[in-house]
C-alpha cells in the first residue's frame, strides 16, 4: 500500500514540473490530486488502523475502547480519557499556556506514548506515516486553521538542577507556590483542593502523585521543567512561567525529583 502512495507522489513531481508556472490554479489542483491528496489518504489509513479505536472515527475521543481504567500504586483508581481532537486542546506542549503545540510536540507524544495512560508508543511507525497522521489529527479541529502553533520555550538546564541543594530550595518554593494545595504536602496528589478539580470536559482531574511512577509529560528533567513552565492545558495545572522565575522553576524540578526518590 505504501509503495502505491510513493508512485503517486512520483507522478505528482513529473506533472508538477510539466505545468510549472502556468497558473496558480493548476498548481493548486495538481498538488491537491497528487501531493496533499495521497498524504491525506495515508493519514486516514494510519488513523483508522492505530488511533480510531480509542480516539474515535470522528476524533472526539469516543472510540470503541472508551474510557480506560488504570490502577495506581497504593490501590488508588483513576480514569484515563482518550484525547478529544475536536477541541484542539493539547496537554503536552513546549508552547505557552493556551497555545497550540508544535509538530515536534505532537510527534513526541505519538512516538513515545503517554505512560500511565492507554496511549502506547509508536516507535515502529515510519516517519511519513506519523507526519500524515498528524495532519489528519489536525483536521478534526477548526482551531488549527484559526491559530498558529506557539513557539517552543527555551530549556537551558543549569548545572545545579537535580542537586540536593537545589531540591532544598525547591521544597520552600513548593510551600510558597502552594503546589501542595493540589499535589499534597509530600507530593502524593492528596492536597485539599483535589475534590474540586475538573478538566475542560468536566471530568475529575487527578493531580500527579510524585511517588507513583512515570510522568505523563516525559521522563527527563527537561520534561518536568517544561510542564511547570507551560502548564497542562485542558486541566487545572497552570503555567508558572509568569508566577515564578526560571531559576526557581528549576529548584522546583529538583524537589520533584526528590519526591520521586531520585535525589539523595
Amino acid at each position: 500500500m505504501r509503495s502505491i502512495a510513493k508512485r503517486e507522489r512520483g507522478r505528482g513531481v513529473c506533472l508538477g514540473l510539466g505545468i510549472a508556472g502556468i497558473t496558480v490554479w493548476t498548481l493548486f489542483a495538481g498538488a491537491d490530486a497528487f501531493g496533499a491528496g495521497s498524504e491525506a489518504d495515508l493519514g486516514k489509513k494510519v488513523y483508522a488502523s492505530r488511533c480510531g479505536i480509542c480516539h474515535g472515527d470522528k476524533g472526539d475521543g469516543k472510540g470503541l475502547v472508551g474510557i480506560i481504567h488504570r490502577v495506581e500504586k497504593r490501590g488508588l483508581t483513576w480514569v484515563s480519557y482518550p484525547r478529544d481532537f475536536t477541541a484542539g486542546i493539547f496537554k503536552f506542549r513546549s508552547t505557552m499556556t493556551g497555545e497550540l503545540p508544535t509538530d515536534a510536540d505532537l510527534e513526541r507524544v505519538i512516538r513515545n506514548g503517554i505512560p500511565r495512560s492507554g496511549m502506547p508508543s509508536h516507535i515502529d511507525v515510519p516517519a511519513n506515516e506519523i507526519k500524515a497522521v498528524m495532519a489528519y489529527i489536525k483536521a478534526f479541529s477548526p482551531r488549527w486553521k484559526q491559530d498558529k502553533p506557539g513557539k517552543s520555550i527555551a530549556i537551558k538546564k543549569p548545572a545545579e538542577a537535580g542537586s540536593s541543594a537545589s531540591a532544598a530550595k525547591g521544597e520552600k518554593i513548593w510551600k510558597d507556590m502552594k503546589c501542595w494545595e493540589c499535589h499534597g504536602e509530600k507530593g502524593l496528589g492528596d492536597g485539599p483542593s483535589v475534590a474540586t478539580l475538573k478538566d475542560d470536559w468536566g471530568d475529575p482531574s487527578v493531580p500527579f502523585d510524585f511517588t507513583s511512577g512515570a510522568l505523563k509529560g516525559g521522563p527527563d528533567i527537561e520534561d518536568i521543567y517544561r510542564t511547570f513552565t507551560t502548564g497542562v492545558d485542558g486541566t487545572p495545572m497552570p503555567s508558572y512561567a509568569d508566577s515564578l522565575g526560571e531559576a526557581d522553576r528549576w529548584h522546583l524540578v529538583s524537589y520533584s525529583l526528590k519526591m520521586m526518590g531520585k535525589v539523595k
Partner: protein
Amino acid sequence: MKNASRFTMGAIAALFLTASPALAYEAAEVKDGGSLSGTVTGGPGKAGTLKVTKNEDVCGKTVADESGKVKENKIEGAVVTIQGIAKGKKADTKPAVLDNAQCVFHPHVQAAMVGSKIDILNSDPILHNSHAYIGGKITTFNVALPTKGQKVTKDLKKAGLMDVKCDAGHTWMKAWIVVHDSPYYAVTDAKGSFKIDNVPPGKYKVKVWHETLGETEKEVTIAAKADAKLDAALKK
C-alpha cells in the same frame, strides 16, 4: 516542485484565513463623530450569595452572586458592542485589569479590545489560579497566582467571549471578558445605561450580551455629531 506548489497552496490559504475573520483595526481621527447611548432592561435578576467552600478565613462564608444584577428592570453588567468598525478612535492603551480580591474577580464583567493586555492580580494572601477560556472551551491562559501582590500580564490575542474561573478550589469564582475587534464597546452601569462615543457616522449592527439574560442584535444609524439612542430588552 511539489514543495513549490504546497507553498503556493499555503500562501493562498494564509491569505484567506487572515483576511476573512477580522481585518486589523486602524486608529484614525474621527471626523464629526456621533455617539450611541441607551439603557438595557429586562430580567428576571438574581440577587443572592454564593457559598464559600474553601479559605473561609480570607473569603468569608459567602460572596455576592453577580450573575444577574437587575434593579427596577435595569440590567447592570450587560456588554454593548458596535460591530464592523475597522477604522476609528484610538483604543485605550491601559491594560485591562482582573483582580482576585476576597475570592471574587473584579470586575465581574468587562470588555477590552483585542491585542491589548490584561493584568491579572492577586490581592489575597492565598492561592488563586486564573484559568481563562475563549469561546467556552479553549484555554487561552491558565496562570497561578500563589502570593499576595502577584501580577501576571497576558495578551488578549483573540476576539471573542472569554470566561475565567479559578482552579484553586474556588468553584464560585467567575469573570467574563468580552474581547472586541474595535474600541467601540461599553458595559452597562447600575442604572442599565451605557454610552459609546466618537463613532464614525454610519449604519451599524449592535450586539447586546448578558451572561445569564441572553443577547440580542439591533441595527442603528449614528448621525454626525448626534447621539443615537438604543434601548434593548433582554429576557431569559
